[in-house]
C-alpha cells in the first residue's frame, strides 16, 4: 500500500467530501471560463457597437497647419502592421441640379470607391461603385429624400466649366456605411474625377488609415508619424459625438473587474473547500504524524489530493463554463442588438481550463496543507475534538492592513496617471481581500447587532446560532469570504455602471432639450469657407413656422486646440434657457459672460489631454487658419468623448468663418410639438436633412446605453450565480462538518426542528453580516472605479447610493445562504444519534 491508497480509501469512505471539494473547483473553473468567454464576447460586441457608431478605428494623415497636400508626398505605409487600408480623401461642396429644377448643396467626398467596396469598407445598398468620370454614388437616405435611384442623372457644376457635368447615379450607399470617412458627405465621386473637377488633381485633404481590429491605434499612429515628412502629421481624429465611448469605457472597466473578481472568487471557493476538507480530517492527520509521518509527507498528501481533484473539477468546470457561456454570449448579443456574437470553441480552452483547475486547487491547498502539518500530535489522542482557537490572530489584522495599503497606493498611482485606468482592477481586488481579512474583527459585532432582530419565538435557536458564529470568528470569516466577494461584485459594479451611465445620460439630456432635431449627418468640412445658403435658408424657414418657440443652432466641425484634435461646437446661447454645459469651478453667469466676450470653454477631457487650463490663451486651428482663443472655463462634456471646444456662433463666424448650423434644435410652443412634424418634414426633404423627434433621439440613445448596461447585468448575474454556488457549497460543507455537534445538541434534548432552525438561522446571520460587509466593500469598489475613470474623463463622477441595487444583493445573499443550509441541515438531523455523535 502507498499513501495514495489511503487517499483513495478516504474518497471511497467519504465520497461526499471529495465530491464537494471537486465541485468547488468545478464551480470556480466554470465561473472563470464562462466569465472570460462572455466578457470577451461582450468586448467584441462593444467593439462592433463602437464601429457601428463611429466606423472602424482610424488614424489620419493631414498637412501640418491644415489644407491639402500632394498625395505623392505620402511615404509607403501599407506595410506597417495594423494597417487595414489607406484611403486618400478629398472633400468639396457639390451643388446638385435635379431634373425638376431643385438645387441641393451637399458635401461631396472623393475616394477610391471600387477598392473600398472590395475591402468591405463601403457597402452598397444597390448598384455599383463609381468608377467612370460620369458616375457618382449617393447615400441611400439622401437619394430617397431627393427621389433619386440608380441610373438617374443629376447635373454637377464644375470649376471653370460653363456647362454642368451630367453625372449618373451608379449606386446607393448603405446608411452609416460611409460615416467613418465621409465627414458628413452624402455624395461620393471617384477621387481622381473630383480632383479634376476641383482643379485639385493629385491633391488630398487627408489620408485616412483604417486600422485592423486587433491593432493598437496609438502604436500605429506613432509608427506612421515616424515615417512622415515634416509637413505631414498623423493623429487619431476626434470622432463624432461618441457618447457611447464613455459608457463603453466604464463597461470595459467593469468587465475587467468582473473577470478579476471571478478569479479571486475562484480561489476563495476552492481554498475554503480545501480548508474544510483538511479540518474534517484533523484527527487522521494527527494520527499519521503520531505514527511517524513527516510534515513533508502530510503536505504532499494534501497537495496530491488537491491536484487530482483540481484536474477532475477542471474538466467538469470547463464543460459547465462553456455551456454557460453560450447563452450568456447570446444574451449579450441581444442586449447590444448585434448579430450573434457567438464564440469560437478554441482548442486551447479545455486544456487551459483543466490547467486552471489544477493550479487553483494546488495554490488554494497551500494554506490547508500548512495547517495539516501544524496539527498538534495530541489532538489525535484526544477523546473530543480540540476547541477552536480563541480571538483573532494578529496576522489577520496585519494582512488586512497590508492589503489596504497596497490598494490605496495602487489607486493613488492610477489617479495620478502613473498607472493606466485598467490597473484599478488589481487594486480593487486587493482592497476586497483587505475587507475579507478584516471580517474576523467586523463579524462578531455585526452578528450581535443582527441577533437583536431575531424573533422571540426563535430565541434559543438564535442564541445558539450566534454562539456558533462567535466561537470561531476566523473560521466563519472564511465562509463568508465568498459571499462578500459576490455581494461586493454586484453592488460595486452595479453602482459604478449606473453612475457612469447616469452621468452620460444627464449630459445628453441637458444637451438635447428640444422637441425636434434637424440635422445634416455630421460635420460640414470646408463648407464654412463659402456661404452656406442652404443652412441659413433652413434656419429662417424653421424660425418662421408658427408653433415654433425657439430654434437653437449648433455648428460642428473638427479642428486642433493646442496641438490636440478636437471637435469645435458653435452654439446659440439663448438668454432665457439654462446652458447645456456643466461648468467646472465657474458659475453659469460667468460662463455666459465669457462666451459673450468671444471666449471659449473646453471639455475636461480635451483639457486633460492638452494640458490647457481655464484662463489660458491657446492656438485654435480650423480650416487651415490658426487663431488665438482664450479658454474661459472647463466644462463637463461628452461631445466627441469630451475632446470639445465650445464657442458662440457669432464668435465661430468671426474667428473661423463658420456660418452653418449642422443641427437645429427646435422647441415648440406649448401643445404645438406634434403639429410641427409635417411642416418640418417638408423642409428637410427640400434640403436633404434628417428630422427626428427628441423622443426618437432619446430612444436611440437609450437603446445604446440600455444594450450596454443589460449586457453587463447579464455578466454580473453570472458572477452572482457563481458566488451563490460557491456560498452554497461552502455552507453545505460547513454544516456537514458540524454533524457531531448537531448530534450532541440532539443528545442533550434539542428537537430536530430546533436544530434545523438553528443551522438555518446561523446561515441567515452569516448571509446578512457578509452581505453588509460586502455592501461596504462594494461601495468602496464603485468609488475606486469612478476615481480611476477621472483621469480619462477629466472630471469626477458622482457616486449615488442606489437602494434597489443594495436591496437585491442583500436579499439574495440571505436567501442563498439560508437555502444552502436548509437541505444539509435536514439531512444531518435525520442521522442516527449515535452515528452523528461518533462522526469525526
Amino acid at each position, binding site marked *: 500500500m502507498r499513501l495514495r491508497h*489511503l487517499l483513495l480509501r478516504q474518497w471511497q469512505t467519504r465520497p461526499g467530501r471529495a465530491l464537494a471539494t471537486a465541485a468547488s473547483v468545478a464551480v470556480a473553473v466554470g465561473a472563470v471560463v464562462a466569465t472570460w468567454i462572455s466578457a470577451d464576447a461582450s468586448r467584441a460586441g462593444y467593439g462592433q457597437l463602437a464601429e457601428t457608431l463611429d466606423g472602424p478605428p482610424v488614424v489620419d494623415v493631414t498637412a501640418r497647419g491644415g489644407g491639402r497636400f500632394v498625395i505623392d508626398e505620402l511615404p509607403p505605409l501599407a506595410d506597417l502592421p495594423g494597417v487595414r487600408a489607406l484611403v486618400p480623401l478629398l472633400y468639396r461642396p457639390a451643388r446638385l441640379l435635379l431634373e425638376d429644377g431643385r438645387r441641393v448643396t451637399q458635401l461631396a467626398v472623393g475616394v477610391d470607391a471600387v477598392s473600398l467596396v472590395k475591402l468591405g469598407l463601403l457597402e452598397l445598398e444597390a448598384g455599383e461603385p463609381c468608377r467612370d468620370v460620369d458616375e457618382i454614388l449617393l447615400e441611400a437616405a439622401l437619394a430617397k429624400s431627393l427621389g433619386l435611384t440608380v441610373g438617374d442623372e443629376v447635373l454637377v457644376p464644375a470649376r471653370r466649366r460653363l456647362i454642368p457635368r451630367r453625372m449618373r447615379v451608379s449606386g446607393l450607399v448603405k446608411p452609416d456605411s460611409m460615416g467613418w470617412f465621409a465627414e458628413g458627405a452624402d455624395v461620393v465621386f471617384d477621387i481622381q474625377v473630383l480632383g479634376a473637377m476641383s482643379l485639385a488633381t493629385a491633391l488630398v485633404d487627408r489620408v485616412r488609415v483604417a486600422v485592423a481590429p486587433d491593432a493598437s491605434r496609438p502604436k500605429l499612429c506613432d509608427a506612421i508619424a515616424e515615417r512622415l515628412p515634416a509637413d505631414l502629421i498623423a493623429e487619431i481624429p476626434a470622432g463624432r459625438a461618441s457618447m457611447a465611448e464613455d459608457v463603453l469605457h466604464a463597461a470595459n472597466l467593469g468587465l475587467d473587474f468582473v473577470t478579476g473578481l471571478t478569479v479571486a472568487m475562484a480561489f476563495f471557493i476552492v481554498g475554503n473547500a480545501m480548508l474544510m476538507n483538511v479540518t474534517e480530517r484533523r484527527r487522521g492527520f494527527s494520527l*499519521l504524524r503520531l*505514527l*511517524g509521518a*513527516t510534515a513533508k509527507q502530510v503536505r504532499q498528501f494534501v497537495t496530491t489530493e488537491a491536484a487530482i481533484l483540481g484536474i477532475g473539477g477542471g474538466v467538469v468546470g470547463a464543460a459547465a463554463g462553456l455551456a454557460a457561456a453560450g447563452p450568456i454570449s447570446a444574451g449579450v448579443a441581444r442586449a447590444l442588438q448585434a448579430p450573434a456574437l457567438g464564440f469560437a470553441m478554441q482548442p486551447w480552452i479545455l486544456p487551459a481550463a483543466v490547467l486552471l483547475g489544477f493550479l487553483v486547487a494546488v495554490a488554494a491547498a497551500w494554506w490547508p496543507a500548512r495547517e495539516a502539518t501544524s496539527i498538534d500530535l495530541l489532538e489525535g489522542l484526544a477523546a473530543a475534538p480540540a476547541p477552536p482557537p480563541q480571538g483573532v490572530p494578529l496576522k489577520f489584522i496585519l494582512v488586512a492592513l497590508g492589503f489596504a495599503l497596497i490598494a490605496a497606493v495602487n489607486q493613488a498611482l492610477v489617479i495620478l496617471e502613473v498607472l493606466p485606468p485598467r490597473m484599478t482592477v488589481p487594486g480593487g481586488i486587493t482592497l476586497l481581500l483587505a475587507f475579507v481579512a478584516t471580517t474576523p474583527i467586523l463579524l462578531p459585532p455585526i452578528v450581535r447587532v443582527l441577533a437583536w432582530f431575531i424573533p422571540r419565538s426563535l430565541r434559543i435557536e438564535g442564541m445558539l446560532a450566534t454562539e456558533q458564529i462567535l466561537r470561531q470568528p476566523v473560521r466563519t470569516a472564511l465562509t463568508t469570504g465568498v459571499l462578500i466577494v459576490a455581494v461586493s461584485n454586484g453592488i460595486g459594479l452595479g453602482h459604478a455602471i449606473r453612475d457612469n451611465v447616469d452621468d452620460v445620460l444627464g449630459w445628453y439630456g441637458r444637451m438635447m432639450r428640444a422637441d425636434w432635431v434637424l440635422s445634416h449627418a455630421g460635420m460640414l468640412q470646408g463648407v464654412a469657407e463659402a456661404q452656406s445658403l442652404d443652412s441659413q435658408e433652413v434656419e429662417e424657414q424653421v424660425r418662421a413656422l408658427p408653433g415654433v418657440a425657439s430654434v437653437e443652432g449648433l455648428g460642428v466641425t473638427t479642428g486642433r486646440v493646442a496641438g490636440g484634435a478636437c471637435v469645435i461646437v458653435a452654439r446659440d446661447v439663448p438668454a432665457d434657457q439654462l446652458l447645456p454645459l456643466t461648468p467646472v469651478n465657474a458659475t453659469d453667469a460667468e460662463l455666459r459672460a465669457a462666451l459673450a466676450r468671444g471666449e471659449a470653454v473646453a471639455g475636461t477631457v480635451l483639457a486633460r489631454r492638452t494640458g490647457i487650463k481655464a484662463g489660458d490663451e491657446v492656438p485654435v486651428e480650423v480650416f487651415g487658419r490658426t487663431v488665438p482663443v482664450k479658454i474661459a472655463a472647463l466644462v463637463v462634456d461628452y461631445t466627441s468623448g469630451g475632446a470639445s471646444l465650445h464657442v458662440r456662433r457669432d464668435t465661430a463666424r468671426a474667428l473661423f468663418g463658420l456660418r452653418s448650423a449642422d443641427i437645429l434644435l427646435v422647441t415648440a410652443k406649448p401643445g404645438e410639438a406634434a403639429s410641427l412634424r409635417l411642416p418640418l418634414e417638408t423642409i428637410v426633404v427640400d434640403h436633404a436633412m434628417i428630422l427626428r423627434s427628441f423622443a426618437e433621439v432619446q430612444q436611440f440613445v437609450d437603446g445604446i446605453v440600455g444594450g450596454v448596461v443589460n449586457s453587463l447585468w447579464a455578466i454580473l448575474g453570472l458572477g452572482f450565480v457563481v458566488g451563490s454556488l460557491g456560498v452554497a457549497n461552502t455552507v453545505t460543507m460547513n454544516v456537514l462538518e458540524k454533524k457531531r455537534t448537531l448530534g450532541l445538541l440532539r443528545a442533550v434534548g434539542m428537537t430536530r426542528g430546533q436544530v434545523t432552525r438553528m443551522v438555518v438561522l446561523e446561515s441567515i446571520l452569516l448571509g446578512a453580516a457578509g452581505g453588509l460587509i460586502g455592501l461596504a466593500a462594494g461601495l468602496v469598489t464603485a468609488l475606486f472605479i469612478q476615481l480611476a475613470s477621472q483621469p480619462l474623463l477629466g472630471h469626477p463622477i458622482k457616486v449615488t447610493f442606489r437602494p434597489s441595487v443594495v436591496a437585491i444583493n442583500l436579499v439574495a445573499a440571505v436567501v442563498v445562504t439560508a437555502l444552502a443550509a436548509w437541505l444539509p441541515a435536514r439531512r444531518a438531523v435525520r442521522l442516527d444519534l449515535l452515528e452523528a455523535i461518533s462522526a469525526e
Partner: protein
Amino acid sequence: MVLPTPAPSFPILRAERLEKTFATAGGVPGVPAVRELDLAVAAGEFVAITGASGSGKSTLLHMLGGITRPSAGRVLLEGTDLAVLDDDGLAAIRRRRIGFVFQRYNLLPELSLEENVALPLVLDGVAAARCVEAARDALAAVGMSHRSGHRPDALSGGEQQRGAIARALVTKPAILLADEPTGALDSVNSANVLHLLQQLVHDRGQTVILVTHDPEIAAAAGRIVRMRDGRIVEILAGAQAESPAGATAS
C-alpha cells in the same frame, strides 16, 4: 515506599530530570504536570506507570514517546537525546523505534486491519511487498490474521486493540508505549490484551511501558512506578518482577 534498587546496566530508555509545565493564558501561572522526574528502563522490561487521574502519567508517556517536548530535562532512547532532534527526526524515531498503543485504538477507519498495521512501514518508504509481509507477521503474532481484511468498524474493541498492538510491533520497535490500552475494553478483552503484552515481553523480550490507572492491570507488569502530582512516589515490584531492574526516583 521507594525501593532502593541499583541502576540498570544498559537502560534502553532513560529520563533525566524531566519536567513538563503546560502554559495557560491570561497571565495565570502554568500547570506543572511532571516535576523533576528520573526514570530508567532496561531492555525487555515491562514497566507500568500508575497513578490517579491528573498524576502526570500520560504526560510522562508522551514525553518518553517524543510526542511532546519536555519543558526541562531530557529523554534518551538507545542513547539518542530526543531533545536534539528536529520535527522530522522525532517522526523517524516514532516510525522506527517506538510503537504506540492507545486507549481508543486509533486505527484509520478507511483502511483494512492489514493496511493499518502496515502504515508505519509505508510511511518509512519500505517496499510494498515487504510491508505486506511484515504486517501479516505482526498480525499473526497477535492472533489476528483471520481478520486482516476487515475494516476497524467491523471489529470488536478487543480485536481493534490487538490490531493496534500489531501496528505498534510491525517495525520491531525498541520500545512499546501503551496508554491505557485496556481503558475502553471489557474485563475479558482487557485480560486478553494484557496477556498478549505479557507474552510479547516474555517471548520476544519486547520492552513495554504501560500507563494505567487500574492497579490490577498495573500488577501484571514487572515493575510498577506510582506517580502523584507529577512525581514518582513509589516503585514496586510487579507480578512479573525478575532480574533486578533499577530506577531512581526523586
